[in-house]
């Protein structure tokens, strides 16, 4: 019997308010200080103060002229290209044309290329339909996001765009994992990207879902979400392929689980049954016992319902083990980066596996007494563990989680 193909991560790129290199990202997470603050470069109608976590790109990330001459509307492309370039470099694949020619990418996002529709509407009053040009259709085609990366780096494998809202960053990893396992590619890039749009702030503001100050995951006084922008890309690779080329191995993708709430267009299921089904599926399809999970990186958005449902799901799946598993959320540090969130959290998980240290949950000082779980708070914690679970939930009800293990 042929042994199943194993999938590892051989590189990553993390663009967030915590910086644009993996080391800076990890140092900021370990420091546990929130990067949420009044936004300086983004505004939304009728909102005086917007709180969020903005990315500052450096000169090397200037928008290529062949992508778009308009940096403001092409922010998402810029973040995605910056993360992908770093991930490919980190994996030692820069200039490896033959390997890249067979590689693919699956990218996800919540808001995608929405800024191009915003740009059209901004000009609509003055220009009317004259504001629509022949390339508008292509500019708002979300598939252009992974296609730009693929074209830049000469990728010739599957190039997909996944839209499962805030679970996109993990869903893309799951689909890329399957493509490698079944032998359709040796190397796949996977991840997510999102930036700020006015509908994000105005929409969540109207729903009362924005935190009044900053998000406080799992805290008794939590009152909503705070957004960040960013991009996270992982380079997934078949284990023997990575070994043969002498690549670094950061972690192993052990398996994944998915489910759908089918509960409400916006609200998560407060009982967390969908989230629990996804976790149970990840464990069972990977043949991993719950006791082997040594850390959970929660979705932890800081909204009352999300955190409640997530805690209930963890309790349902892990039972008596639940209070002994360290749990954190990185969203109170870099904000909720929507489609990028799951991928950036996976990078945090890999760094935690490699260093055996867990980042604290910023702004969490008084855990909801009903939760009774072991939240990492205050300062970074040293923990010995081999496997961790990264959770995500998307607007509309799609849940995805991924099991990551220490590098084999």
């Amino acid at each position, binding site marked *: 019997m042929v042994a199943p193909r194993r999938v590892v991560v051989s590189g990553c790129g993390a663009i967030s308010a915590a910086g644009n290199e993996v080391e800076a990202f990890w140092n900021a997470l370990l420091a546990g200080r929130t990067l949420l603050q009044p936004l300086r470069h983004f505004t939304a109608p009728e909102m005086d103060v917007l709180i969020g976590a903005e990315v500052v790109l450096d000169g090397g990330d200037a928008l290529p002229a062949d992508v778009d001459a308009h940096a403001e509307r092409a922010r998402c492309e810029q973040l995605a290209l910056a993360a992908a370039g770093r991930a490919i470099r980190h994996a030692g694949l820069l200039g490896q044309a033959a390997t890249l020619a067979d590689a693919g990418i699956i990218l996800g996002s919540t808001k995608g290329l929405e800024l191009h529709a915003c740009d059209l509407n901004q000009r609509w009053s003055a220009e009317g339909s004259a504001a629509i040009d022949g390339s508008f*259709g292509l500019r708002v085609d979300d598939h252009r996001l992974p296609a730009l990366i693929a074209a830049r780096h000469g990728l010739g494998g599957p190039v997909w765009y996944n839209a499962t809202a805030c679970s996109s960053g993990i869903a893309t990893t799951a689909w890329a994992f399957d493509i490698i396992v079944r032998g359709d590619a040796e190397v796949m890039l996977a991840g997510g990207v999102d930036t700020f749009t006015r509908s994000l702030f105005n929409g969540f503001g109207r729903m009362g879902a924005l935190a009044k100050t900053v998000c406080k995951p799992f805290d008794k006084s939590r009152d909503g979400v705070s957004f960040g922008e960013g991009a996270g890309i992982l380079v997934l690779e078949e284990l023997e392929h990575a070994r043969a080329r002498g690549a670094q191995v950061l972690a192993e993708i052990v398996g994944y689980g998915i489910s759908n709430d089918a509960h409400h267009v916006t609200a998560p299921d407060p009982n967390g049954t969908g989230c629990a089904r996804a976790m149970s*599926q990840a464990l069972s399809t990977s043949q991993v016992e719950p006791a082997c999970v040594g850390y959970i990186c929660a979705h932890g958005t800081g909204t009352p319902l999300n955190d409640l449902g997530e805690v209930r799901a963890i309790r349902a799946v892990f039972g008596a083990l639940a209070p002994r598993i360290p749990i954190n959320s990185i969203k109170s540090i870099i904000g909720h980066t929507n489609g990028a969130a799951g991928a950036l959290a996976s990078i945090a998980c890999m760094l935690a596996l490699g260093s055996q240290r867990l980042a604290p949950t910023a702004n969490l000082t008084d855990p909801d007494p009903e939760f009774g779980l072991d939240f990492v708070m205050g300062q970074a914690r040293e923990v010995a563990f081999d496997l961790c679970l990264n959770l995500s939930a998307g607007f509309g009800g799609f849940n995805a989680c991924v099991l990551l293990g220490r590098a084999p």
Partner: protein
Amino acid sequence: MTDASSAIAVTGMGVITPLGDSPVALAEALAAGRTSIADLPEPSPASASRLIDFEATRYANIRGMRVYNRASRLGICATRLAMTDAQLDSIPAEEMGVVFATRYAHLDTLIEYDRALVTVGPSRTNAALMPLAIASVPGSVTALSFGLKAFSITLSNGDAGGLDALSLCMHLLEQGRARAAVVVSANSLCNEIVLSAARAGLLADAKNVRVFDRDSRGVALGEAAVALVLERADHARQRGAQAKAILRGQASRFAPRPDLISAALTRAARRALQVAHSAPADLALVSSAGSGAPATDRAEALTLIDVLGEEKTPVTAVKAALGDADACSGLLQTFAAITSLSARTASPIPGLANPAVLGLNYVTQATPLRGNQALVTATARTGSCSALVLSSVDD
């Protein structure tokens, strides 16, 4: 195809098109060589295959559906038709999922919502539109409408999305992550996209949309919805369901430059044949992506000449009848392949008189088929190319 026991079958089909809203009616219209493409009053030149009298409540009475946009309602209605066709009552909703393939299904809602933010301000904007203005909505509201709890995924891979969605769903079912799932796509015309396509010079008036023809000037747009129910063939047999086709292999590849589209589509087709354990000689039919766009039609023709070699496999193209319905087209082509294999007759390509690329067996009149496998191809403007091999159930 991994092994015979986990082969994925199509057990239900739902279609809503200008040429018919039942599999039988649409198959008959395609076989008769009918087309629903007509000129648009503006912009000019432009043409489309439009659903003039679509009324969602004729197909499904789903609570809350009236706030969804036209594409989502079309998708939900096609899903209802496919689920009814598959007689899925015995499968719990918790064990069913949906993959929605789209390109612009949320865009009109996004533009409307965002434009209101700019023009009248957030406090006077319909807040209910915000959650419906993101790309994942078509999949999530379809799942919500039917209580599907295994997964709700939206893929946006341009014209290649329909075949990629089939691939994703096939593999999730093979792994047992659901017992059955619906792959659905719907396309409606968004004014901004129609205008942009016209200004890009992509569109032609109806008489000049001629798929694979040397005189073609461009494409027609298409409105349609298609849903296919997939499940493992052995599971379908156990519950007494009639399989309509077996999906044998799929692959997608990318062209980093426009001049590499033909090469990428060739790689995708060869890989799909390899996965299906099939050879070009096994193919009874090619249900192609031919649209009337001269450059991509030429690229596809060159691919098919390369892949088929000496085989004179009949090549058909449903976009000549139904226009280019973006991500929905791949599923329309799949539908056409399934019904053609079943009827053992290939449907003609309306309007094709003088092929631009010679060397292929283009179907210009209803043609008897020998064999039971078909190749379906798709290409996206952004560079993705996909191919699917399927067979009728008597394989």
